[in-house]
């Protein structure tokens, strides 16, 4: 991997690691950063399937929810966090394998709409399986690790997710996913086992979301089918990478920053104004610069210098 991004990343991580100690008075700042890390990790996870492989899923909240509920249930029964979180992740991953079987029989837009159903169906199951999930009243956690620990957990998750994405991008697996995104059938004729590749991407994204769900549960101490399995969560997972740059490594994180910012701004005003804003933003991006913020940055850079040769985007 190139040295320069690695060094910048290391510096950024170091800076972020210091924040809680420097800004210990401002819990709000730590909270916001925590959310950015968490959403960034979630968006990066979604992007593995949606951006790298081009399989846009509107139902990924299902995995977040499974992680959240599994961890909540296990820790409430006395299981150690160190065991509960990985197990939750694997449960989310296992679920993804199961739904992948019918889901990947669908292609393109069909697949995407089908995932809406998957997200919905999972939410309904959680809603009705009251013996396990407590139904609509949700579940609560008695206690949580202190915010600073959560902060570092979220940061670690983000670093892991982005690191994984960066590694995949230039790996053999990454080439398979890119080929699947561009032209699944052509990829098949070149020896790419496309369904296997898609399934692997789905599994990875589900596991990461499973961990994120655990962190979410530990943070809010209350989860309900609507909060973790809700469609608006799934929507957020789609919007963030698109805003930042679908299929790039850092795009989802950039999108997470924008998302968090917009949400905080609109939280005080009308209930659904933020989603409305996202809808408008989504339309604007799709019509004018489908590659999102990173795409816009690319354009500006390209306009500034006259390139001797054109390079394929590789952020």
């Amino acid at each position, binding site marked *: 991997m190139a040295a320069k991004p690695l060094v910048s990343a290391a510096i950024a991580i170091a800076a972020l690691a210091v924040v809680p100690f420097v800004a210990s008075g401002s819990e709000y700042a730590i909270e916001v950063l925590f959310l950015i890390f968490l959403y960034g990790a979630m968006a990066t996870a979604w992007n593995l399937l949606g951006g790298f492989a*081009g399989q*846009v899923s*509107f139902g990924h909240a299902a995995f977040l929810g499974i992680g959240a509920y599994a961890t909540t249930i296990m820790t409430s029964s006395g299981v150690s966090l160190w065991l509960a979180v990985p197990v939750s992740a694997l449960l989310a991953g296992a679920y993804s394998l199961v739904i992948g*079987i*019918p889901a990947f*029989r*669908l292609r*393109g*837009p*069909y697949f*995407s*709409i*089908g995932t*809406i*159903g*998957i997200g*919905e*169906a999972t939410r*309904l*199951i959680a*809603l*009705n399986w009251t013996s396990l999930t407590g139904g609509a009243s949700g579940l609560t956690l008695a206690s949580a690790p202190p915010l600073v620990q959560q902060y570092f957990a979220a940061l670690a998750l983000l670093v892991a997710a982005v690191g994984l994405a960066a590694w995949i991008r230039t790996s053999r697996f990454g080439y398979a996913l890119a080929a699947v*995104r561009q032209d699944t059938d052509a990829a098949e004729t070149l020896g790419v086992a496309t369904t296997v590749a898609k399934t692997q991407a789905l599994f990875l994204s589900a596991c990461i979301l499973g961990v994120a769900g655990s962190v979410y549960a530990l943070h809010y101490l209350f989860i309900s089918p609507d909060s973790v399995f809700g*469609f608006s969560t799934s*929507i957020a997972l*789609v919007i963030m990478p*698109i805003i930042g740059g679908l299929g790039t490594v850092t795009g989802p994180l950039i999108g997470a920053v924008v998302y968090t910012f917009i949400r905080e701004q609109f939280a005080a005003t*009308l*209930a*659904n*104004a933020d*989603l*409305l804003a*996202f*809808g*408008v933003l*989504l*339309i604007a991006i*799709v*019509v004018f610069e*489908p590659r999102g913020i990173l795409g816009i940055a690319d354009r500006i850079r390209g306009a500034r210098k006259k390139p001797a040769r054109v390079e394929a985007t590789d952020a």
Partner: protein
Amino acid sequence: MSYGLALIYGVLKIINLANAGFLMLGAYVTWWLFTSFHVHPLLAPLVIVPLFFALGWGLERTLVRRVLHAEPIISLLLLFGVWLVLQNLAYVIWTGDTRSIETAFVEATVNAGGLLLSVPRIYVFVMGVLVLIALQLFLTRTYLGRAIRATAQDRDAARLVGVDVDRVMGIAFGIGIALAGFGGSLLSLLFSFTPDFGRALSLKSFCIVVLGGLDSIVGVAFGAVALALAEGFGVRYMPASLQNLISFVVLVVVLVALPKGIAGTVRALRRGS
């Protein structure tokens, strides 16, 4: 409403998520016309159909057209964005409170040989069948209808034989959205609604379409019947909130067992391929 979806998809090879949004909007506009202007809900379609046709046509011309040449994901995302805007606009304007239309007509029932039938349901059913027949006739017997089908099958070939593809796409989109709005208007007679209205229905519509095969209206009708039957069974044995799951479970089962959808499999069996 499935027909609108099939039509739009066929011509534009795009699954129109925004359809759900326009369906919901149709219901709300009907309600709004009723409460603010005392327009009888049965007359609302007179306003809705042309209005939504114009909206759909305008949408195609301004936004959809620009993304036709990009990856299919992009058009999907665009229409998803439109749906997001519509739904949340509805939330903002009309709030999330449940709305319903209450008139004598909506409450009316008719006694047919001992069975108490709800008049609005009969009306909606009849209208549904009429629209289906009208649509089928339009697509098969009129020039425009055939132009739409031709464009759906092969845009370039249609262009070569003289079809004004740009105009056709705008019209087809307009028709699809108008149908969605009309559907919403009809449904407002039967159900109370919130801005979330379109989504569950959109899902069912999608299930129907995949079950029945996207390319034939007969297939879609068949899928609709099949799903209605499945749900009929479901009503007896499952708690209310799980009913929406039924269509989905059926879809999953069919997908795993019959990758070509029901109609596709039937066709394949019949021709021995």
